[in-house]
């Protein structure tokens, strides 16, 4: 069902947790299956210095969260905004067709976290 890469990330998820006093936090629920993900980021000089996630969801949801944090950590905000759910799935060696929607969670949560960061910036 899942690729080895998916299972590897599922078994050893990277960057689990929450950043206290994060620069931005994004939380999204997956309308289709009821799963939830929260991503928090710490941004310095427009670079994502640190990123952490928490996910309530299936194996694919957890693996996509994990790989997503790995993909953008150390990248600029603009680079991070270009991340698509397809890129997340590809980084895992693909997902079963029925599980493609799960990869939306990660990309959306990340984009929300960035939006939150930008909103906060704007206020300062």
């Amino acid at each position, binding site marked *: 069902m899942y690729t080895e890469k998916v*299972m590897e990330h599922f*078994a050893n998820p990277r960057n689990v947790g929450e950043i206290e006093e994060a620069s931005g936090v994004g939380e999204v629920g997956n309308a289709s299956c*009821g799963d939830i993900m929260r991503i928090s980021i710490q941004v310095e000089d427009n670079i994502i210095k640190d990123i952490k996630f928490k996910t309530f969801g299936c194996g694919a949801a957890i693996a996509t969260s994990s790989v997503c944090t790995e993909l953008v950590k150390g990248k600029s905000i603009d680079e991070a905004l270009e991340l698509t759910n397809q890129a997340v799935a590809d980084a895992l060696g693909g997902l079963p067709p029925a599980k493609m929607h799960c990869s939306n969670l990660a990309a959306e949560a990340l984009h929300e976290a960035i939006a939150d960061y930008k909103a906060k910036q704007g206020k300062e």
Partner: protein
Amino acid sequence: MQPVYMDHGATTPVHPEVVKAMVETMEKSFGNPSSVHAFGREARKLLDEARASVASLMGASPEQIIFTSGGTEADNMAIFGAARGMRLKGKGNHIITSAVEHHAVLDACKALEKEGFEVTILPVDEDGQVHVEELEKALRDDTVLVTIMHANNEVGTIQPIQELARLAKARGAVFHTDAVQSFGKIPVDVNELGVDLLSASAHKIYGPKGVGCLYIAKGVKLTPLSYGGSQERRRRPGTENLPGIVGFGKAALISQAEMQAEAERLTRYRDRLIDGLMELPHVKLNGHRTNRLPQNVNLSFHFIEGESLLLMLDMKGIAASSGSACTSGSLDPSHVLLAMGLSHEIAHGSLRLTLGRGNSEEDVDYILNTIPEIVERLRALSPLYEGKEAVTSCTQRR
């Protein structure tokens, strides 16, 4: 690591004696039971013997048993057959079922709606039980069929079939029960239950996949689901799956001999698992505490999603199942858990352990030792879980 299979509700390993009987049939009695010659007669004899064994385990006579390709076909044959047959006789077009039926029953009823039938779906209480008064309220003069399962596949709750059937039949409706999960596990007697139609499946009782049967009480007429040769008293055409049927017969014989002792043994394991796992924080038992199948454990672990739990268990060699949407191909979590009043989230975090012949006391120990750390790990990942202290309500968030 020795794997621990605790998904006997999904399917069971085939009993070695069953395999042996099937191999013998394939090697020595491959004839077509409809053939006139010696090969055919030999096949016919085995077919008759298997029918007698299966009939005996449910207190029926052999000619009341029609072999099918499984529980699903038996359910469809019963529901379409009785509903269409009764309507042809002008008896009406109202059907009653329950909210916790298997999809083979629920979806067949839904398909009948498209044919102009009206379907009433009875609710269940928080233990998954159908109440007799609900059926009483729902029955009408034009009710032609009531179909309510004997024991639930997800939560193991046993329904009061005897009273439900008595009530339905008093009002002139045909009564069908899906006994796929109870047959061979707890006593199932068609006469005691008083049902007109009863479905069973071989692969849930250590028999082969792809064989089941429908019990049809004397006098009950069914419109056939398909057409062809004159096998199975013209009720179910197609060359009989002889090795499979022989395997089903053997499995029924073995179940009959071992059922009582096995039910007692598994009830002990079940209760150890329930009591042990309920000691963890934020765990809920699904289904009735005592009026449930001996082999069924179903728990919801709050803040956790079922598929992740299954995958973690799988990595530890434990095979289990879940009512999670993520495992079912559909995007909604178990309709059974939702009908029992669980929120989507809690329904998502359900775990079903179904015990069986191969399980030992050590398997129970292993599970009791393994699950707590997995639950803790997954909760640490969960955005819903803010530490044990912080949690307030875990049943209604959505």
